[in-house]
């Protein structure tokens, strides 16, 4: 039933379950308190994911099944999302700025006759029930709050800004099957091949400790020292865009606005100046440690602990001391 007070979350399935970012968006939609929360789930089959979404706070699931949704081609997902919007008639459409959401949400917004408040870090309703969306701009140097004027309002949430709700299996909700009439012609950008390097070891997104290097390292070799330190701490190695662009490490190492968003307990930044675009990817780390020879580097503004010095002298002594501290104990990081 179309409900003009409702909020529709454009969900995403990963391995048959709602993506963590989808559960976060459901929580954000609930927190707005505007009206019932529906979730679109689209895939080859939706199955148990609908129950997970309901347990995590959804009042209704709009399930769209099609073989053409198997690879989540953005063309097909946009069509599915538009069909879900037509079925739900919401006043707010909420997605997440994931890899898929980055492609789907702007297109969905324009298809609905409006634009997207993208990558939001806070959402609220004003007195008239309009969506107020706060989003970092200028690479994170300015937070803009906009009032969304579209009907519906369309926004996407930065992953990791809201906690998902505790799943409650006793919650109930409706599952509505929607026919999105997706045919072959819908998918105009075809995927020919997808190459994913199996992450050697820990994924950056999952790491509790990250040791990141920047242009200040001066070349690829020092990254071996970062890797040694990361291994010692049970963590992973990241990098700034400058280090990736220089070809010192693969682009998959990049942390930041246009790289990965990470939320480790400990983020050790070595030879990184702390440009706002870099910090956008790691500002939610519990503690940032900065090693930089420039006392005026921005990174120190965001760091819990800082050392002003040459990494080539600081890092070996730091690593050796940690070796000593950790060898005598069984304590795990964190």
């Amino acid at each position, binding site marked *: 039933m179309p409900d003009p007070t409702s909020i529709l979350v454009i969900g995403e399935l990963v391995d048959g379950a709602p993506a963590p970012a989808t559960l976060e968006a459901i929580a954000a939609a609930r927190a707005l308190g505007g009206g019932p929360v529906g979730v679109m789930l689209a895939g080859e089959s939706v199955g148990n994911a609908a129950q997970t979404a309901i347990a995590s706070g959804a009042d209704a699931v709009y399930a769209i099944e099609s073989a053409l949704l198997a690879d989540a081609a953005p063309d097909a997902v946009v069509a599915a999302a538009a069909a879900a919007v037509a079925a739900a008639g919401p006043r707010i459409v909420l997605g997440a700025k994931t890899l898929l959401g980055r492609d789907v949400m702007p*297109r969905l917004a324009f298809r609905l006759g409006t*634009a997207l408040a993208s990558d939001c870090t806070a959402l609220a309703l004003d007195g008239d029930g309009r969506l107020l969306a706060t989003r970092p701009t200028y690479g994170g140097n300015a937070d803009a709050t906009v009032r969304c004027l579209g009907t519906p309002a369309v926004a996407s949430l930065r992953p990791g800004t809201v906690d998902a709700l505790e799943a409650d299996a006793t919650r109930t909700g409706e599952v509505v099957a929607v026919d999105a009439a997706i045919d072959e012609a819908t998918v105009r950008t075809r995927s020919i091949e997808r*190459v994913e390097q199996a992450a050697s070891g820990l994924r950056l997104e999952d790491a509790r400790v990250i040791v990141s290097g920047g242009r200040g390292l001066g070349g690829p070799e020092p990254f071996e020292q970062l890797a040694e330190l990361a291994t010692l701490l049970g963590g992973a190695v990241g990098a700034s865009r400058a280090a990736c662009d220089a070809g010192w490490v693969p682009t998959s190492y990049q942390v930041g606005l246009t790289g990965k968003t990470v939320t480790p*307990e400990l983020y050790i930044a070595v030879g990184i100046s702390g440009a706002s675009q870099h910090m956008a990817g790691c500002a939610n780390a519990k503690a940032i440690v900065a*090693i930089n020879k420039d006392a005026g580097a921005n990174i120190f503004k965001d760091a819990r602990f800082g050392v002003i010095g040459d990494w080539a002298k600081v890092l070996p002594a*730091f690593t050796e001391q940690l070796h000593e501290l950790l060898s005598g104990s069984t304590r795990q990081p964190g």
Partner: protein
Amino acid sequence: MTAKQVLDPETPLSAFRIEDDRVAAASNMAPVINGFDEQAVEAALRIKEAVDGTHVTVLSYGTDFALDVIKKPLAMGADDLVLLQDPAFENVIDPMLTVAALVAAIRKLGDVDLVLAGRQASDWDNAQVPAGIAEALGWPIATIAKHVEVDGTTVRVQRVLPDGHELVEAALPAVVTVSNELGAPRYPNMRGIMGARRIQPAVWSAADLGIEPTEVAPAFELVSLAAPERRVETEMITGDDDADAGRKLALRLREEHLV
């Protein structure tokens, strides 16, 4: 292809101000072309080199332009520059009018096969104008390219994924957004710079484009623009020398149970 003139994202924070809900830089800071748009120029020029008869037109929307800045794509090797310039074409967070003007310009140009754009503009970080163009024209779109190749009636794009890449294909006409992984844009050479000096950009107003700015419904209204709060108290660790500071850092992190 599209290119936006923006505040230099490398502007030091000390020269960066927010005043009356606008972002301003110290007056001695020159604007630049959005970095990803320079990469889109590079992608366009590589296609021009590979495919005979390719003509590269640069479209830029705004109220006022620093001509020596916005002409850089010409100096790099693009053929034409069209400025979509009108007092109503302000640089605001709302992309609706930008999209309307760019779409009208693409229609006015006529036989456009491929629109290359940057993955996002470094001021408002919207990452959606190209999607708006694709939706309005009903064209396919491929985003975050590190390699773009045109083959007859097809565009093949290597997209950057967080942990790899994806090869996608679409029939022309299409929209492609370019990322920094494409590689560094070329430097203009002397001949290019001299050539660019002689080219006068075309200037199209809202009326020339046949659009009525007040009739384009806005998507947003800016409520506030503010510097983000910093919540961190920084503890600087010092020692007798750099190595000593490194050792003390380890001990301090241990004390805090961070390692």
